């Protein structure tokens, strides 16, 4: 299954086999402007949903960090957003979906009807069949703008206390961390909070400066020197003490304004590593992980720390679960990168955590199965004719 190809690894690849392109399923089916219930085909992009519903006063209940993903992909990866502590995962807002199996049968599933198929398909990585359409619940907004604040934190301890404070008050929270900081500054960064603005603004449409990385750079420009410089500047940049009003685009989708940003990593590309650690061992585990990364000098500007709340994800293989999640890009430096990943894997496994399949291209099968213990139950719902490179990789050893 291939939607819009924004998963970072091989969940949307099927090497030496057939790949179904779902973007052709791009029609809306029904929208109720009084209840905010939208039914659409699964290949519709979240950006297309936003273009339709924002002018009518609605917004996605949950959105990931890019709007260029399909509705089907958002369901199959049970994606999450900056409001996980309030809203749970994307799947929590799916009211119904239709699953087309390779034998031609169609199963309409909801959280209560055919609920086992629903639970298998949400977060099911496209393996239970083709999602043809879905019905999602939107949330009302008064304007396309957000009130946002940014606060610096000097270390991981400060991050925990900011989190406790702001998660009570705000719908959207997320933090950028300086992955190179070590010692007393370990885990320093900037904490972002946001809320849909209450006031009505003239619905002037937002024009992002459209930028693009025109060519693949011959080598990665993300290296230790550029990273240290960027992180120091970014961490120390002046932050306004007051909240400001900004359009939802730069708040939710900062990278979407730079087309083909992945090219900065050069031809070898990059890996993303996103883990979640349960609260019980999370603080120590996260400290160890950040130390290991800081010592290695690898990593990238894009390092994001966020706590997941207690709302249960509806999928058998859903990634979001109560705990702390860290997401980070790593330029591909071959062996050195893989050695670091192995060390991080150990911490994740010891803490009882998991890695995010949507972002993964290399996790050992053992780590997948320990992080997603429902895999054996899930396998019963896999369509016999569906598979993916990811699935074969994590199931083979």
């Amino acid at each position, binding site marked *: 299954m291939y939607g819009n190809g924004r998963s970072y690894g091989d969940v949307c690849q099927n090497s030496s086999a057939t790949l179904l392109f779902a973007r052709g399923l791009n029609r809306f*089916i029904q929208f109720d402007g009084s209840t905010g219930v939208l039914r659409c085909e699964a290949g519709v992009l979240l950006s297309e949903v936003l273009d339709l519903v924002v002018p009518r006063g609605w917004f996605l209940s949950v959105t990931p960090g890019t709007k260029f993903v399909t509705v089907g992909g958002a369901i199959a990866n049970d994606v999450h957003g900056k409001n996980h502590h309030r809203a749970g995962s994307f799947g929590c807002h799916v009211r119904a979906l239709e699953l087309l199996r390779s034998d031609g049968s169609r199963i309409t599933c909801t959280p209560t009807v055919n609920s086992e198929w629903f639970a298998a398909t949400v977060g099911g990585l496209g393996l239970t069949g083709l999602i043809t359409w879905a019905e999602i619940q939107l949330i009302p907004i008064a304007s396309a703008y957000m009130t946002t604040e940014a606060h610096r934190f000097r270390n991981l301890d400060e991050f925990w206390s900011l989190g406790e404070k702001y998660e009570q008050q705000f719908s959207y929270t997320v933090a950028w961390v300086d992955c190179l900081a070590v010692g007393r500054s370990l885990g320093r960064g900037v904490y972002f909070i946001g809320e849909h603005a209450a006031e009505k603004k003239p619905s002037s449409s937002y024009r992002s400066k459209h930028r693009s990385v025109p060519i693949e750079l011959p080598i990665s420009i993300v290296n230790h020197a550029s990273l240290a410089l960027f992180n120091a500047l970014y961490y120390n940049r002046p932050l306004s003490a007051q909240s400001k009003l900004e359009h939802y685009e730069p708040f939710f989708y900062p990278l979407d304004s730079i087309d083909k940003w992945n090219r900065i990593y050069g031809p070898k590309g990059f890996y993303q590593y996103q883990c979640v650690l349960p609260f019980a061992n999370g603080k120590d585990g996260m400290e160890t992980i950040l130390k290991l990364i800081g010592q290695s000098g690898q990593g990238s500007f894009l390092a994001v720390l966020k706590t997941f709340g207690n709302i249960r994800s509806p999928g058998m293989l859903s990634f979001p679960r109560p705990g702390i999640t860290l997401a980070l890009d790593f330029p591909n430096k071959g062996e050195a990168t893989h050695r670091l990943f192995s060390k991080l894997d150990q911490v994740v496994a010891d803490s009882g955590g998991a890695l995010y399949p949507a972002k993964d291209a290399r996790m050992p099968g053992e780590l997948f199965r320990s992080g997603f213990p429902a895999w054996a139950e899930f396998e019963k719902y896999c369509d016999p004719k569906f598979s993916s490179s990811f699935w074969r990789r994590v199931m083979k050893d």
Partner: protein
Amino acid sequence: MKRIVIFGGTSAIAECAARLWVARGCSVFLVGRNAEKVEAICDDLRVRAGPSQKIGSAVADLNDHEKHAALVKSAEDELGGLDVALIAHGSLPNQTECEKSVAQTLAEINTNALSVLSLLTVMANYFEPRGNGAIVAISSVAGDRGRKSNYVYGAAKGLVTLFMQGLRNRLAAKGVVVVTIKPGFVDTPMTKDFEKKGFLWAKPETIAAGIVQAEERRSDVVYLPWFWRYIMLIIRHIPERIFKRLSL
């Protein structure tokens, strides 16, 4: 806002054009053969449309020329008048099978040319006394020169192109615009059997945007994407003595 009737409304290019027109506030009436597809596309357009826009449809096989006038009438009734007609239906004949079968050749000519000529005539006679309106039809670069690989399709499109040229001449003084669209290779269900690689293959969205723009600019003949104008200029000027030996 404009009221637009689209023949062959379930074709990929027509569907994209309909979305663009609806986004501009237009009302749209779709005619297509497959009832299920017509309904799905209308549902989509209704979600996209504002409360004052109308979305209507009819299911018909356009090879049935007798029905054309009635279809135009029902589109007019539904939308309260018409400003633009887009004729977008067609098929891609299997050239080798057509070579073996006269019946199939004539059937393809009927679908891709005669039914279009009928609609062009009906629309011309609708707009002419009103002194305004635009008739847009999708011909093809294939109609610019006959080639062994698809001359049945090419001949049909060539007939459409030439007919529209004459119609444009007839209606120029009457305030009615006639726009001939000549796309190159487009990645749609019609061309599903081709290996679609390289810059010559365009997305239906690109062609649709060109159609909407051509109607707005009241253009005459538009190649989409634009570079096909120059490719076809060269192809048209290759001497027949040489051309007949080429494999194109």
